């Protein structure tokens, strides 16, 4: 029973990380209707930036917040320089650009930081919290970080004018321009925020999977599954999907199919959702009157 509980808890912890990355995917999908295949690599690259800062002697939390700022800038710059020119291009062109971005960031990280696996520190203590045996401090801490992030994002999109403008620009760019919203700026902002959210996922998963250029490839697959399970256009769905995928992955991996086949859980989920419920659990069919 206790190992089962532990599997659930570990699932919630990694699920939170999938949820964050899925949320980053959903944010970009909502505003551009593109799946950003390079989202994981942006997160990986940001984690390397954090690692460099920590290695240079900067304390963890200062490095953490500096990385948030840097990854925001990285995301916004990528949108301005690379994505903006193909904004109106056919979808396949955009997909190729995303894949190119994935390969470039991956190789760049390997070239700059080498492919050797590096440990990445956790900001949370080594010993389990309050002497509990079912969850480690890092797992509990990363659940906490995810929840704080989600609440902040919710408050931002729900209650600030800028958040409202970003939602508007994502939904209806033409009408947004007609109320004076600088839509292109909102897209850059969205990319920046998505990169920032992704970087949190990267820094939280790195102590578990270790830091190397390919560390996010599996995570990104789980995040896709999470976003699809929840509904690719629903931020809440992405979050719940993330936790579902995290728990399923851990429990099935431990009791049913073994750790080697864990990744196939994500693929099975992706295929089944697309076959049986393409809108996902929370993907909404908008009610409109015409």
């Amino acid at each position, binding site marked *: 029973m206790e190992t089962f509980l532990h599997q659930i808890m570990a699932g919630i912890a990694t699920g939170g990380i999938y949820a964050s990355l899925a949320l980053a995917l959903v944010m970009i999908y909502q505003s551009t209707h593109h799946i950003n295949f390079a989202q994981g690599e942006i997160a990986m690259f940001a984690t390397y930036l954090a690692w460099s800062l920590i290695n240079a002697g900067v304390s963890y939390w200062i490095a953490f917040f500096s990385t948030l700022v840097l990854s925001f800038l990285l995301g916004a710059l990528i949108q301005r320089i690379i994505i903006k020119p193909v904004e109106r291009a056919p979808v396949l062109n955009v997909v190729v650009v995303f894949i190119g971005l994935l390969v470039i960031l991956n190789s760049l990280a390997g070239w700059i930081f080498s492919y050797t696996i590096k440990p990445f520190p956790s900001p949370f203590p080594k010993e389990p919290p309050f002497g509990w045996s079912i969850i480690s401090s890092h797992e509990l801490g990363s659940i906490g970080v995810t929840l704080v992030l989600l609440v902040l994002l919710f408050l931002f999109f729900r209650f600030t*004018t800028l958040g*409202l*403008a970003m*939602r*508007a620009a994502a*939904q*209806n760019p*033409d*009408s*947004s*321009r*007609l*109320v*004076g*919203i*600088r*839509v292109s700026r909102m897209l850059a902002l969205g990319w920046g925020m998505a990169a920032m959210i992704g970087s949190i996922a990267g820094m939280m998963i790195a102590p578990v999977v270790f830091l190397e250029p390919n560390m996010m490839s599996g995570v990104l697959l789980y995040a896709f599954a999470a976003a699809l399970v929840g509904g690719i256009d629903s931020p809440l769905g992405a979050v719940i999907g993330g936790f579902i995928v995290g728990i399923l992955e851990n429990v099935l991996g431990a009791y049913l199919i073994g750790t080697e086949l864990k990744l196939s859980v994500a693929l099975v989920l992706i295929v089944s959702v697309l076959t049986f419920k393409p809108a996902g659990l929370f993907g909404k069919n*908008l*009610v*409109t*009157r015409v």
Partner: protein
Amino acid sequence: MNVLLTVKNMCAGYGQGHVIHDINMDIMEGSVTALLGSNGAGKTTTLRALTRMISMSGELHFNGQRIDTLATEEIVRLGVAHVPDGRGTFTGLTTEENLRLGAYSRNDKPSQQQDLEKMYGYFPKLRERKLQQAGTLSGGEQQMLAIARALMLRPRLLLLDEPSFGLAPLVVQEIFDIMRTVNQLEKVTILLVEQNAAMALNLADHAYLLETGRLVKSAAADVMKQDESIRRSYLGA
């Protein structure tokens, strides 16, 4: 009266080829101008060109400033509100969020709340629907919402694209009454595109007639009403 908007030799269209040719107009400050024409004459295209939603050539001067090089959102920020064809509702947002977006480019937070109240005064239906998803509003309500959203900008110039389209006569009457109020009390200059020529000419001071992409007539609304060919083709009398 001053000229608020001058349009010089404006051509515009979609992709290659022009839909409207060589449009010249002067919109007087404080006036209501009607742009009449049948289906496909280029009325919507003209309005879209004025806020540069489509590519255009020619000159636009708004309040003494060249605006034909500015992006749509920058023109809007100068005080040009455009109620587009199809109403442009943010269907996934609530009614109140739609209205707040109308004031997005303004910097005076406190008076936005007053304006919100004022819009609910003009259109009490919108208050009843304020937390409802705007896509579920009826056609008439969405038209009211589109006009109210445009007014939240506190515009100097209001461009209206067929506000009567597809609406019940009573609703049309209500909307036209409010446009008159807005013009007279708040001194908002209005450029109105309409197929319903009779309604438009009753409200307007001046009218232009557009046929197959060219302006063929420009006259005071009263003169236009008496014009024999207009009566036959557009007023059904």
